[in-house]
């Protein structure tokens, strides 16, 4: 189990984006994803599009129709992009105005459950989502229309 905190990634009047950073890590989860693919020749085209998909979500809102379901029915874990791509980026979509980005990787032909790396990213976010819901219930986390207020650390 590792300790992590919620940190701010970017915001607009339509959407606030957060990510997670594990204690002791140099980079947040979304920055790990960025650093993994930014110089990749093989995945460059898909990666550049995906970053711009995120930018347009930031500018318009995190509407459900922009995402694909990839977690369980009971959680809010979703993935990008919707269309066929060699990459998958995972996130927790709290609402049209709040999105929490996680890490991601390359999508092989098999389902994510059979890929240890991707499965790990999804499990981390599923656990985070569960702790977030518990925190809202016990009052240690306050979710407003477009923000998450917490200084809590999360045991993931």
């Amino acid at each position: 189990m590792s300790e992590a905190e919620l940190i701010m990634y970017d915001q607009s009047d339509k959407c606030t984006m957060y990510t997670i950073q594990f204690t002791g890590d140099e980079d947040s989860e979304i920055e790990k994803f960025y650093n993994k693919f930014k110089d990749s020749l093989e995945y460059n085209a898909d990666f550049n599009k995906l970053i711009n998909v995120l930018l347009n979500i930031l500018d318009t809102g995190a509407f459900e129709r922009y995402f694909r379901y990839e977690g369980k029915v009971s959680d809010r874990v979703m993935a990008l992009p919707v269309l066929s791509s060699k990459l998958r980026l995972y996130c927790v979509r709290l609402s049209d105005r709040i999105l929490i980005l996680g890490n991601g990787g390359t999508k092989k032909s098999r389902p994510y459950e059979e890929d240890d790396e991707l499965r790990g990213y999804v499990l981390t976010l599923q656990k985070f989502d569960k702790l977030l819901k518990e925190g809202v219930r016990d009052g240690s986390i306050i979710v407003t229309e477009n923000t998450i207020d917490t200084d809590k650390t999360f045991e993931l």
Partner: protein
Amino acid sequence: MKHTKMSLREMAAQTPAEVQQEVKMEFAVSNRIYQLMVSKGLNQKQLAIALGKRPCEVNKWISGQHNFTLRTIAMLTTFFGEPIIGVAE
């Protein structure tokens, strides 16, 4: 609350300008189609049936991530009876 070292806007600024433009246009067309669909009181399934398409096709159109052909745009412009895109004179 702490911030990431690099914001999304800073990351996106590093990507090629033509990709930025492409994705922006895809989202704009997609959101216009969604807006027309809602203004006509249609949901995804109803629009698919009205056009003789599969619901997953409509799902792609409104995902913000579809590379539309002019054929599809022409078909949807005709169906809605309203413009989806404009061309500079």
